[in-house]
């Protein structure tokens, strides 16, 4: 994770089961699983294993200890499954998510839609630093951004990727980098690999 002076930049913490919670849902983006991480999670979540469901997106689960295990293909499937579970979760339940930032916020915003409050959700960033970028000019989203400047997938403007973050959109702000001097694009660096 990158730290920043920008106040809207989220700060992530390790996942710790909240024993006050009723049922617990752990959602993990498979590509962010370093060797031994699943075993580590199984240990951390052992106290709530009887009330735990784990959704693994894009990875196979070789071990037990993670409650009732479900395998999903992608973040989009996680979002769909949460939407379908609209009435299935209670105000005492807890959600834990591990993944890249676009994954974390796809899940967090989908959970907010079905009523999860901020204090019911824990987010832990792992893996790539790639960003979802929201264009302040055309309001289009550009996914998988790893560079300091990116061509907007919506309008094509060259956007400077900022640390300003929107929890509502689950995306970083991108502003036109050559608005004052058209065509003058600073060097593009790979900074969010």
């Amino acid at each position, binding site marked *: 994770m990158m730290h920043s002076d920008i106040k809207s930049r989220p700060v992530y913490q390790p996942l710790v089961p*909240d024993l*006050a*919670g*009723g049922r617990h849902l752990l959602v993990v983006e498979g590509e962010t699983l370093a060797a031994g991480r699943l075993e580590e999670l199984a240990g951390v979540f052992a106290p709530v294993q009887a009330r735990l469901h784990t959704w693994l997106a894009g990875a196979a689960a070789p071990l037990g200890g993670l409650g009732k295990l479900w395998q999903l293909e992608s973040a989009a499937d996680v979002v769909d499954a949460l939407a379908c579970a609209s*009435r299935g*979760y*209670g*105000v*005492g*339940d*807890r959600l834990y998510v591990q993944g890249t930032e676009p994954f974390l916020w796809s899940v967090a915003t989908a959970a907010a839609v*079905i*009523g*999860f*409050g*901020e*204090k*019911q959700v824990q987010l832990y960033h792992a893996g790539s630093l790639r960003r979802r970028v929201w264009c302040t000019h055309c309001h289009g989203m550009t996914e998988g951004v790893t560079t300091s400047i990116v061509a907007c997938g919506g309008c094509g403007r060259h956007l400077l990727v900022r640390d300003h973050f929107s929890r509502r959109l689950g995306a970083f702000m991108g502003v036109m980098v050559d608005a004052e001097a058209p065509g003058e694009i600073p060097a593009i660096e790979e900074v969010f690999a």
Partner: protein
Amino acid sequence: MTGETLKLKVAALADIAPGLRHVRLVAADGGKLPPAAAGAHVQLALAGAARTYRNAYSLVSRPGARDAWEIIVRRVPTSRGGSAYIHECLQVGEVLEAGWPGNLFAPVRTARRQLMIAGGIGITPFLSYLAEFAFSGVEHALHVCCRESEQQVFDPWLAGRPGVSWYWDADGHRLDIPALLAAQPAGTHLYLCGPAAMNEEVLAAAAAAGWPDTHVHCEHFGSALSGGEAFRAFLARSGVEVEVGEDESLLDAIERAGVNAPCLCRGGACGVCATPLLEGEAEHRDHFLSAEERAAGLLIMPCVSRARAGRLVLDL
């Protein structure tokens, strides 16, 4: 109507049940009242025989109403004087001084479902909630714990409203609070207003069921909280020493001495009256200061809190 206080005229009085009086208030100058939203309260100055009492009452009138405000007042056996005055002395046509409406108990309008639990006269803030929720269409339920005989009392405000359930103290009629709280979908917000024992029971049950505290909202009754042993307080900036009687609050005594102290709810909830405590140990009875702030001993809420022992010195 502008200015620091409002002048309200009593337009109608009605005893709607033993110990329950309904009061309809209009602007004394015949104009419009400021609008108040669901959950709002108004503070009335009631001139008792010995002194002036200032009590806050929930508005039960329709949210936004500007022609009249309505309150329902229960006669408290150990009354500080305010409810006794309203039940025994208040007359139609009388003009009362009142504060502007405040709201420390507004519903969370982003909630997916609104769950309300009332104990007795604690139903009053929810009468305005129900009017709002009926209008907005948000899913809601009100659970009222009261005497069996009091169910019909609130019919004029509840008539035809769905989602109201009644409970009283008899086998088969008690509210199963843990079962109710365990069955609520994500996105539910809980509001409770009732006697301290009921509030504590519901708060404990909510915590045990894993409710985040951001989703639990409690309005406490303030009136019975403020009395206790008499003590003295010195107001350092004013150079005044006040004697706080057994049946009055520190705030009452400060006001009686003619010292201006800001306040809003008079029930230890809003934090407006928080006053620096220079010397002495406070017995904290409010719901505003955190455990850390209480331990630090630098602030006191004079509307409900008192001296633990000896004399207090306030920066006032």
